[in-house]
């Protein structure tokens, strides 16, 4: 199987979908000659031309609004928002328009748009360029929020999202773009709303998504050295949220921990923990644990930035403490 980076896998998905379906087109800032600020659309302008690789002015509201209008006519726009931090100026179009239109129209219109955007910290880009905001969109009925953690999923999920008829926020991660992995050639589809068990285990369930899945997997390695067997679940999407997979695991391990990069309060972990206690309360041997980013705007200095992000040792120590109380 070919080995690609996460970035190349996304690029391959876009190329394949644009070749497969003429109604797919991309738009966004600097996605043309420049290839996108994380180079995901590199080479596509030459292949598909400026009408289908539409480089836009700096105009996030306009980009998402335009995509919404075009999508209602049956086109399949894939909009790139340079980073999720910029999406707030276009949020009205996504939340008030795209996510509401099918309902407000009584089902007579669809908005098949994918809004791709990188999320997360790690490049010392500070408070206005390092946020994890996807959970805001996961709150909204009518939206899907998808966040792949591997190159294979980046390709398979992006292809699925482009074919889906709903507005989807497709969350990439700034630190994953150079990650390498095996990616199936050609048609590779990952179903929406199906979590992946990245590692099987019996003692503790670690639920995560996006880049933090890698941290969870490293933690599982460390825990194995202590004789603790951790099961790592990659949610792949926050909405739809595959609680069946999470609950089956928790019923087996009796311990649940959620690891995500975003802020703790009202974060994805809050929803997942609530559902675990609603649906698997009797199986729990310990309160559900959360390991999250610190509740601060992201600072600049490397040491401070690292201190604001979830650390491997928090995951390892948390799991040890939980299981130790068994």
């Amino acid at each position: 199987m070919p080995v690609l980076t996460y970035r190349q896998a996304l690029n391959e998905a876009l190329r394949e979908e644009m070749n497969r379906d003429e109604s797919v087109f991309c738009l966004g800032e600097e996605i043309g000659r420049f290839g996108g600020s994380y180079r995901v659309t590199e080479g596509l302008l030459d292949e598909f031309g400026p009408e289908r690789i539409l480089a836009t002015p700096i105009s996030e509201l306009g980009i998402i609004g335009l995509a919404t209008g075009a999508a209602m006519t049956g086109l399949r726009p894939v909009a790139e928002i340079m980073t999720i931090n910029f999406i707030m100026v276009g949020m009205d179009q996504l939340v008030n328009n795209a996510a509401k239109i099918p309902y407000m129209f009584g089902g007579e219109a669809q908005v098949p748009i994918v809004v791709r955007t990188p999320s997360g910290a790690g490049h010392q880009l500070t408070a206005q360029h390092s946020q994890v905001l996807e959970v805001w969109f996961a709150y909204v009925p009518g939206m899907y929020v998808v966040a792949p953690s591997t190159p294979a999923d980046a390709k398979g999920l992006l292809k699925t999202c482009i074919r889906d008829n709903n507005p989807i926020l497709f969350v990439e991660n700034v630190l994953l773009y150079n990650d390498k992995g095996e990616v199936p050639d050609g048609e590779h589809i990952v179903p929406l709303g199906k979590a992946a068990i990245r590692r099987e285990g019996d003692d503790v369930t670690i639920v995560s998504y996006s880049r933090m899945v890698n941290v969870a997997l490293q933690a599982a390695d460390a825990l194995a050295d202590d004789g603790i067997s951790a099961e790592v679940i990659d949610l792949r999407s926050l909405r739809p949220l595959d609680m069946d997979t999470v609950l089956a695991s928790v019923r087996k391990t009796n311990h649940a921990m959620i690891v995500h990069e975003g802020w703790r309060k009202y974060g994805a972990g809050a929803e997942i923990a609530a559902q675990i206690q609603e649906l698997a309360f009797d199986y729990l041997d310990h309160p559900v644990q959360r390991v999250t980013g610190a509740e601060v705007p992201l600072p600049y200095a490397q040491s401070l930035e690292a201190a604001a992000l979830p650390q491997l040792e928090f995951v390892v120590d948390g799991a040890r403490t939980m299981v130790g109380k068994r």
Partner: protein
Amino acid sequence: MTAATEQAADPDIATMYRDMVRIRVFEETVQGLFMQSLVSGTTHLAQGQEAVAVGVAHALRPDDYSTYTYRGHHHALARGLDLEAAFAELLGRATGINHGKGGSMHLTDARLGLYGSFAIVGAGLPVAVGLGRAAQLRQDGRISATFFGDGATNIGAFHEAMNLASVWKAPVLFVCENNLYGEYSPLRSTTPVEDLAIRASAYAMRAQIVDGNDVVAVYESAREAAALARVGEGPTFLEYKTYRHRGHSRSDPAKYRPEEEVKAWLARDPLTVARRRLMDAGSSNEAELDRIDGAIGVEVEAAVERAKSAPWPELSEVTTNVYA
């Protein structure tokens, strides 16, 4: 001009007059229903602004797109929205055009090219640019018209949409219904320019200032702009000076408006203007126009009665259509 004359013969004034009367009677009826609590939530009525909706609608092809706002009944009806389905929607019935899920602020029918009645000021403008881009991509000769009020020209979405449409020569008509009030505030208290069309010049966009109470002037200006858009000449900003006969919403009595101002605009009611045109041309007379009014009154009354007898939506409807 060629493209427009090819697309359809010019409508006669009597047809446009009828369309305007139908809207007027519809809006007056809705107001009555609201007072009786049969229509709930809120309504933003458009009595006085019928000429803009009807004049522009007649300049569009049936397959063209439009987006409009929470004050949008007139735009939907002018493009052919079924009266009964419109009333049923406002009454919250199962037979409502949006199955009772849209209500007054979101009255739409995608089958008529109505791609949204948006209740956030300015939100429909970028959507209309997307509709225009879709037409450009498909090269199908369609255009989109986006209707908005004077207040929308102060919001970011307006400026982003104007810029995008102009830089790509998107086939979009930016139709500003300048009714002189943004909600309860006179335009001069919120906006440093009196003629909003001046804002188009910042986007190198053609603009026209037109009497929005004269349906013929509206039609002619929109026809010209539509023809240009269809042949790749890009967007036009159309500023129609008009007036809201009623308040902003619901039972707003609009006491903040000077009496003389209201009186002057009522004298220039678009229905009166159209009647005068018809009579001056000798193509109709008072009695005939009154008969038209009466017949439309009967038509609207019948539609509302049918809508009133429609069933309420099934409760299972609450969770459908959240996703496609």
